[in-house]
């Protein structure tokens, strides 16, 4: 009977109930977006870092991977040292640079990765063959589109370009052996991957045996932190960064979004709370006579409270369900805006949907719905019956 009364009370003023549900839905959508924002970026980045199974990254000391143009010299010696560690199964050295291709009188610049194709974690081969030969390279779709070449074509490429003199340095003739998807690059960014030795020679970095980054894959169950500490202590020219630490550093860089997510999420909850509590309070005020009669009849305070709380909860739940769809659409839209961040890997999502996010948002809204009904239900339950009836009669 209580739920029947609660639903009937909401249906009695349909327009106002619909508006309140709509208001809660918008608040719920915003809340869901913010919950997704708080967790999404972190989770998305973590998934990306672990996608190829590399748990440690070594960058020039004092920098983050590819954050600056600094390099690590003596790469071969460092690789040898790293391979002596029993927990290390794979050492992947990576050199970053640029590659220039002249097409139709224009110079097209692409991001270039020098890797060991047998032990790399930067791209997934989609078609063709990997860049196993010294004169081979794999490229992404953006490169193919920009240059108009196809897999199998041979190109003259250069590591250096002087735009004023229109002259190239570090030139080579390379074959486009395959098509790949680069995991850490921004959408639309043109990229190639070739053997690290080739890129070192083209960029003049062979002399000092320079690389930009090492990626390490460890054995299952290995103590990542112990390996990290050992490297940090024994290889002075590098900073060893675990996935957790990389995430923490990215968190710090993008902490603004997490904090924004928290603040806006809290504001959404407050708005939802105010809306529901106002609606239910007004509804109770209009039904003072009815409530007083129910109490006179012998309906207990607890049951009056339950009925009022049910009204608030019903609005919150209905709004939450509607807000779920709205939230997903909004998150997609906001994600499309933030995905345009320069340099952000295309695989990163700021708003990542996880069922946990939906449950968290729903749980919060349920709590808010119940809390919003507390004041009006307390008012209803503590009505002095005789006084309320008298005031109703006078009114």
């Amino acid at each position, binding site marked *: *009977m209580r739920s*029947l*009364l609660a639903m*009937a*009370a909401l*249906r*009695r003023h349909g327009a106002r109930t619909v508006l309140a549900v709509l208001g809660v839905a918008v608040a719920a959508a915003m809340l869901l977006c913010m919950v997704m924002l708080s967790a999404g970026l972190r989770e998305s980045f973590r998934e990306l870092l672990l996608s190829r199974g590399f748990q440690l990254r070594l960058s020039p000391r004092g920098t983050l991977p590819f954050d600056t143009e600094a390099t690590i010299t003596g790469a071969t010696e460092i690789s040898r040292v790293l391979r002596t560690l029993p927990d290390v199964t794979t050492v992947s050295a990576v050199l970053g640079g640029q590659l220039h291709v002249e097409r139709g009188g224009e110079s097209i610049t692409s991001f270039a990765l020098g890797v060991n194709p047998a032990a790399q974690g930067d791209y997934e081969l989609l078609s063709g063959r990997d860049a196993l030969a010294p004169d081979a390279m794999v490229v992404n779709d953006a490169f193919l589109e920009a240059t108009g070449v196809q897999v199998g074509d041979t190109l003259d490429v250069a590591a250096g370009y002087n735009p004023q003199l229109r002259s190239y340095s570090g030139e080579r003739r390379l074959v486009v052996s395959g098509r790949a998807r680069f995991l850490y690059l921004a959408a639309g960014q043109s990229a190639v991957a070739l053997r690290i030795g080739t890129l070192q020679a083209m960029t003049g970095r062979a002399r000092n045996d320079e690389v930009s980054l090492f990626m390490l894959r460890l054995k299952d169950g290995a103590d990542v932190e112990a390996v990290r500490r050992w490297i940090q202590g024994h290889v002075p020219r590098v900073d060893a960064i675990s996935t957790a630490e990389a995430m923490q550093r990215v968190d710090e860089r993008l902490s603004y979004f997490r904090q924004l997510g928290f603040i806006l999420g809290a504001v959404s909850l407050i708005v939802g709370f105010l809306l529901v509590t106002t609606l239910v309070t007004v509804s109770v005020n209009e039904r003072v*006579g*009815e409530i*007083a*009669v*129910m*109490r*006179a*009849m*012998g*309906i*207990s*305070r607890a*049951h009056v409270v339950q009925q009022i709380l049910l009204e608030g909860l019903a609005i919150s739940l209905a709004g939450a369900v509607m807000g779920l769809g709205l939230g997903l659409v909004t998150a997609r839209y906001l994600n499309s805006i933030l995905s345009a961040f320069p340099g952000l890997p295309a695989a990163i999502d700021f708003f990542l949907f996880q069922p946990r996010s939906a449950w968290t948002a729903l749980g919060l809204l349920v709590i808010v719905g119940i809390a919003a009904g507390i004041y009006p239900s307390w008012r209803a339950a503590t009505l*002095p*019956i*005789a006084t309320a*009836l*008298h005031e*109703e*009669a006078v009114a």
Partner: protein
Amino acid sequence: MTLLLGARNLRRDYQLGRGGEVVHAVRGVSLEVEQGEYVAIVGPSGSGKSSLLNLLGAIDTPDQGELTIAGRRIEKLSDRELTDFRLRNIGFVFQRFYLLPVLTARENVELPMAEAGVSRADRRARASELLRYVGLERRERHRPTQLSGGEQQRVAIARALANRPALLLADEPTGELDARTGEEIIALFERLNSDGTTLIVVTHDEGLASAARRVVHMKDGAIVHQEVSRVRAGNDDTGAVPSQK
């Protein structure tokens, strides 16, 4: 005859606003009502009739005095006990009916039974029976807005009888009804009393008052005199209220 209600020296004061005048609504009223009795309380506006009824119905607490209903000392009960006592022992009928507009006539009658834990099937059956008793068996599924004033009041009476109360209290039950409809309600009250229901009615309606066996006159918060109606001194036995105590 068994004593059903005993009130001794009841007092109730109200303060008008903060720091305002104190109104002595009920001043030392003592009253006894026997089981099966029909008592009307009459008096001018502001004489304390409704205030007294609220005290007798345990929806307001006296500032002083004692009240015993069906052997229980009412002023000693906690709020929860009081609520439960009202649910099972007292039925209320108000001037403004106070039916829940979102429920049908039958659902309104079922409401107290649902609160008392009666099963759905049983309360439906009893609600139908009560509505038949008050002559509204064809209006079960109508909402209050679809009923006339008299019909609404009859539904309210059926609701008040739902849990077989020992005592039925009515505050100006014909106050919002036209004369003809009011007579129907008076007849219904007479029938209820004939079937064994103990009634205390507050009224301005002479017809309703004259139907009572005893009329209590109040003025300025006190009982000034009581009279037993010569016409209603005896009991008629014209038919029982469905399963009434």
